[in-house]
């Protein structure tokens, strides 16, 4: 889409295209965390699990109307396509335009709500004020009761951030790069301190609000869906260990709901950035998300998965498999008896299947067949579990052997795809064994032994 010549008046379509294109590298597009019934008056409600409304051709979900307020920016971050030294068409939405778009899209069930970010227009304060005004308009004049996610602009007046926080469901401040040094190199106008300040402010706001809510049920909610952040992976030289470590401390110290990882896409071609001939580091991003889930739902700690000596994830094995084969002393686990925490550590058993196992074994002794029905991936789990004291197949608990089998299974041809299948043999399967019937024999059959 080339919009090189932007003449005086831009249509809504032009603006939407420019400003959604500019927002697409932001990954934090979820609509989860808040359960809110409709008010009966305005329009909209929220579902705690979030709702995906469509999926774009890169397989990512389209849940919110993800746009920038403006892509005009005074900053010059080297990785960003909206940097002020980049020669691209610029556009700015008016608050009314954003409101109409959101309402009309929402009515038709295209979207779950609004995701509003922005370039820095003149100053952080002005930008934050525009965001705040837009959201206020949407909530009060248009009576929109759906999900809203906005960015808190680092460096903006804390009062503006506080006011916005009471209107939205989720706020996020982008950490951009995992280390302060990386940030200094690539984003000269941003400072680690400025980014962490609003993050801390939102955190204290949320916890203070939680106490108020326990006293006064109808007190307005402050950022009810929690706050999130995102980091770019692969633009600077940080290791997976550093990134995971930062994520873990963000979860612990800043009480974040989510940390998002975004595989770096080189859009500006700046000389300070790595060129990625093999495309964006998607596998690395995937491994980081896997590890992130292990931290949040499986009771793992970052130090268990990686350390200074092994700072990168295994390419062949996922982080949980990798941990398991290095800690074979914990295995095999007896499925009918092991506590939930131990089941969660088995590769191939997820949170849901672990819960199902714990519930089901109260009323029956589980077999491998039952496990399969409950959603356990036996292909991975069979090396690490026993059912009633027996393993599924005779398997050696040996690191090399298990690694070989786990990685092998990926390349092996799926059973049956080459035409070979199991088949019940039968006495009447004559065509398998008989020779073709000759004309002479047919004749003999017909006329008998003359």
């Amino acid at each position, binding site marked *: 889409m080339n919009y090189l010549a932007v003449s005086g008046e831009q249509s809504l379509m032009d603006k*939407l295209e420019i400003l959604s294109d500019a927002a697409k590298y932001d990954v934090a597009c979820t609509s989860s965390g808040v359960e809110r019934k409709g008010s009966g*008056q*305005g*329009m909209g409600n929220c579902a705690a699990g979030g709702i995906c409304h469509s999926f774009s051709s*890169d397989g990512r979900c389209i849940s919110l109307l993800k746009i920038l307020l403006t892509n005009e920016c005074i900053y010059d971050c080297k990785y960003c396509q909206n940097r002020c030294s980049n020669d691209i068409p610029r556009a700015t939405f008016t608050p009314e335009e954003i409101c109409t*778009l959101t309402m009309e899209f929402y009515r038709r069930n295209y979207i779950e709500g609004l995701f509003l970010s922005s370039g820095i227009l003149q100053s952080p304060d002005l930008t934050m004020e525009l965001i705040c005004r837009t959201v206020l308009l949407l909530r009060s004049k248009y009576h929109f009761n759906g999900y809203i996610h906005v960015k808190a602009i680092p460096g903006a007046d804390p009062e503006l951030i506080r006011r916005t926080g009471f209107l939205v469901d989720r706020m996020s401040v982008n950490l951009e790069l995992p280390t302060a040094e990386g940030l200094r190199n690539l984003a000269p106008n941003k400072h680690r301190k400025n980014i962490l300040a609003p993050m801390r402010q939102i955190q204290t706001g949320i916890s203070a609000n939680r106490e108020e809510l326990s006293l006064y049920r109808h007190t307005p909610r402050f950022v009810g869906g929690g706050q999130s952040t995102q980091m770019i992976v692969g633009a600077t030289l940080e290791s997976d260990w550093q990134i995971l470590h930062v994520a873990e401390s963000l979860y612990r110290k800043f009480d974040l709901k989510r940390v998002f990882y975004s595989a770096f896409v080189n859009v500006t071609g700046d000389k300070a950035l790595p060129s990625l001939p093999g495309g964006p580091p998607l596998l690395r991003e995937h491994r980081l998300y896997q590890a992130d889930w292990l931290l949040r739902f499986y009771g793992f700690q970052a130090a268990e998965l990686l350390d200074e000596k092994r700072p990168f994830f295994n390419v062949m094995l996922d982080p949980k498999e990798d941990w398991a084969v290095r800690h074979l002393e914990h295995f095999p686990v007896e499925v009918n008896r092991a506590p939930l925490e131990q089941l969660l550590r088995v590769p191939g058993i997820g949170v849901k299947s672990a819960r199902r196992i714990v519930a089901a074994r109260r*009323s029956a002794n589980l077999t491998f067949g039952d496990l399969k029905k409950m959603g356990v991936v036996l292909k991975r789990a069979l090396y690490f579990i026993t059912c009633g004291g027996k393993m599924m197949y005779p398997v050696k608990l040996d690191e090399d052997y298990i690694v070989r089998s786990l990685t092998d299974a990926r390349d092996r041809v799926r059973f049956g795809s080459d035409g070979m299948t199991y088949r019940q043999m039968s006495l009447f399967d004559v065509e398998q064994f008989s020779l073709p019937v000759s004309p002479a024999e047919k004749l003999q059959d017909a006329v008998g032994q003359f």
Partner: protein
Amino acid sequence: MIIYLCEDTLESIFTAIYKAYEEKRDPADTVLSFTDEPVLFAEYAEVVPDRDRVCSVIRTLERRFGEADYLSLCMALASENPKKAQAVYRTVADGLGRNVGRGHLFDNLADRYVHAAFAMSRGAGREIEHLQGFVRFQELENRVLYSVIGPKNNILTFLMPHFADRLPRENFVIYDQRRNFFGIHPAGKQWYLLHGEEAVQPALCLSKEEEQYRELFRHFCQSIAIRERQNLSLQKSMLPLRFREYMTEFRKD
């Protein structure tokens, strides 16, 4: 062995369950079926839906298993699977027999029938979740929102409350093309279903702005995708093709 012949409705199946308990049948020797395929040495009984019995069954299920599990049973009964009646009956019998308690009806997944009912309920539940996102409304000339769906399972009843809560001030209609069901929500009032003779799909006149917003959304879906990350098979597994014929951004018109 006794075979209760039911229709494919919640009322009929719940009445059959009531009758099976009333007549003190052994669950292992009782079948709920939609078809009267002949079975040797079986006794057949037609089921006539009965309001009081249905209410009584619903009350018992809600009291004994809790609201969430009762809802899951209803979702299992919305499934397209023809064996759903039997699976639900045996699950209920298992739950009542072992006195499992609220929220634990589907715990015993090692049981064949409990697992079958669980799988059906999960299948229908997933489709409900999908369609909460994938339903697309079109605005007609009189500002009524109109949507067509073609779900595998009979889930319109579960979709309507979601949208009624979301769009209380809108007149909207969701039409299940495969079953000829209309879900109708008049603004500010209670929604209802329409089925049968009087349910005929009307001729549609779209409003003036409809075309404009449709185009805007199509362009938005295009420009939000990152070309360097293109992954059509991931898109296909997240958004199966069968939904796309009803969705604005994938339709060619």
